[in-house]
């Protein structure tokens, strides 16, 4: 058969414009209104907490015996005052600083530590895997709340100790997820192909493993931030976290508990903040999950 003839009317193959992976993720995120809204809420909370001193708010530590328990909408106090007469708006925004820090930092640290442990266990396998994973399993024997309380209780109250205890609580679940996705990727042919290139284990992990396991681990870790915030608030509520008079949502919820019959709306405010933040974080992680899905 004459092939030269064929090539003359050979239709060009389909050319698709291709984008980088992250620009694709960004593109899909932008088109998801709910996720974008949640992202905006979280950003607003973080920004207002960071820039609280420049927002012209009242002093969150200064109380006033005559201005105690002003209701929401009272003149001069848009969100009322607490049981010591401190401005609620200021305390809620300043409270975001500690709450978000204690809520996010442990997950960030645990994300790195857990990823390193899990990827190592998943890629190396064998005895290394057994040692890491069985150690991690020990922590799964306790419910996360109890574990956090136990560690915090043992270390004593305080911000640093809360951070440490929460970090320890979140390393095992992240390690387990990291191990599971890594050993899944490890079985794929492209890892074999890369090893067959003569690449060292570290190069294979750096180029071929991390890029493919990090996004599922990241999405999972994002979903843990809301749990972490609630746990942190819980520790403060129990008195083994942040100590008064620091503004912190969990602690505020605790102290306002006593006035729940006097001014229920007021005492619910820190709870609303915790609820909104953790809901937004959860929805954000769902949105990320679908945006990070490469194949369609």
């Amino acid at each position: 058969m004459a092939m030269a003839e064929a090539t003359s009317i050979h239709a060009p193959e389909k050319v698709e414009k291709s984008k980088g992976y992250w620009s694709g993720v960004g593109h899909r995120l932008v088109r998801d209104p709910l996720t974008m809204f949640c992202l905006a809420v979280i950003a607003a909370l973080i920004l207002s907490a960071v820039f609280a001193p420049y927002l012209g708010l009242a002093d969150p530590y200064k109380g006033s015996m005559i201005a105690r328990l002003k209701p929401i909408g009272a003149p001069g106090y848009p969100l009322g005052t607490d049981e010591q007469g401190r401005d609620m708006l200021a305390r809620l925004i300043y409270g975001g600083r500690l709450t978000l820090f204690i809520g996010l930092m442990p997950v960030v640290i645990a994300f790195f530590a857990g990823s390193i442990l899990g990827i190592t266990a998943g890629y190396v396998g064998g005895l290394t895997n057994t040692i890491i994973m069985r150690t991690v399993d020990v922590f799964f024997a306790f419910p996360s709340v109890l574990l956090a309380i136990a560690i915090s209780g043992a270390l004593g109250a305080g911000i640093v100790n809360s951070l440490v205890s929460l970090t320890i609580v979140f390393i095992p679940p992240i390690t387990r997820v990291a191990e599971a996705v890594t050993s899944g990727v490890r079985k794929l042919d492209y890892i074999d192909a890369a090893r067959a290139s003569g690449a060292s284990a570290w190069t294979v992990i750096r180029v071929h493993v991390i890029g493919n396991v990090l996004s599922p681990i990241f999405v999972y870790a994002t979903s843990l931030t809301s749990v972490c915030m609630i746990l942190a608030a819980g520790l403060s509520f129990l008195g083994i976290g942040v100590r008064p008079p620091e503004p912190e949502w969990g602690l505020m919820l605790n102290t306002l508990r006593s006035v729940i019959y006097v001014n229920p709306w007021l005492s619910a405010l820190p709870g609303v903040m915790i609820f909104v933040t953790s809901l937004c974080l959860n929805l954000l992680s769902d949105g990320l999950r679908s945006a990070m899905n490469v194949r369609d």
Partner: protein
Amino acid sequence: MTKLLEMKNLNVRFKGKRTVHAINDVSLSMEQGETLALLGESGSGKSVTLKTLLGLLPPKRSEIDGSIHVNGTDIMSLRGKALQRYRGGEVSMVFQEPALALDPVYTVGHQIAESVMRHKGVNKAEAMSTALDMLDRVRIPSANRRLHNYPHELSGGMRQRVMIALALACRPRLLLADEPTTALDATVQIQILLLLRELQKEFGMGVIFVTHDIGVAVEISERIAVMYAGQVVEEGTTHEIIRDARHPYTQGLLAANLHDVARGERLNAIPGAPPALEVRPDSCPFAPRCPVAMPECAAGLPPLHLPSDRRRVACLRAAQPLAAE
């Protein structure tokens, strides 16, 4: 006698992020007890045709038009109970991966009996004896013992035999086979092909056998319909297709089988790849890859050339003998 299958101007389009025109104006007809091979490569629409016949396409995502009659029943109008009776009763299917198509938590005897009870309304004991009989008929050694095995306890070839027993238990008039031997080893594949051939004679049913392997089609079928880009480009008896292929695509497929190519000789490969079918082809879809294409080929869909009864070729060149080779 009514025709076993009468499919007229079937069109299937999948909607979604990308539209795919999977089947474009396919007509097929089969007499009772005939064996037809649907031969084509991935994306040619052969599997979609089978799924349409069983009403298995997702209704929300697919647009189907045209008419399909099986034994005189309009299957496009079947709904609910009637559709269930039709599937597995009148028409049943054998899949490529028996490991996925069989339920891992029930014994094979249970699964066959279950289907018999549902379609024939007999009691458990009778259904079990039918199941045993079926395992015997698909030549499973010591069928009595195998009846109580779970699918994972059987080898690949054995599982495919069970799958066939399950499909034939209710004596369908039409058996659909979707690449049932592709996942099997060569020595097992030929066993299953010969078994299907014998069972077809024994039960007198019609068989539509979907495959990408022209050699398999020759072993199993009396007639072959070659599909490309969601269309039937050539149809005829197996003898006609193998000995006297008229469509350049069929000729290319035959050459690509390498059955009688000298070692190291340069292959007459079909260049390029099949079209993506995002738009409905309005000219010969094979023309861009065709070694004997003419300017007229891009002008419109080729007319059907009908050299003899029940033989058709969708190619402008089919009327004249090909100068190729």
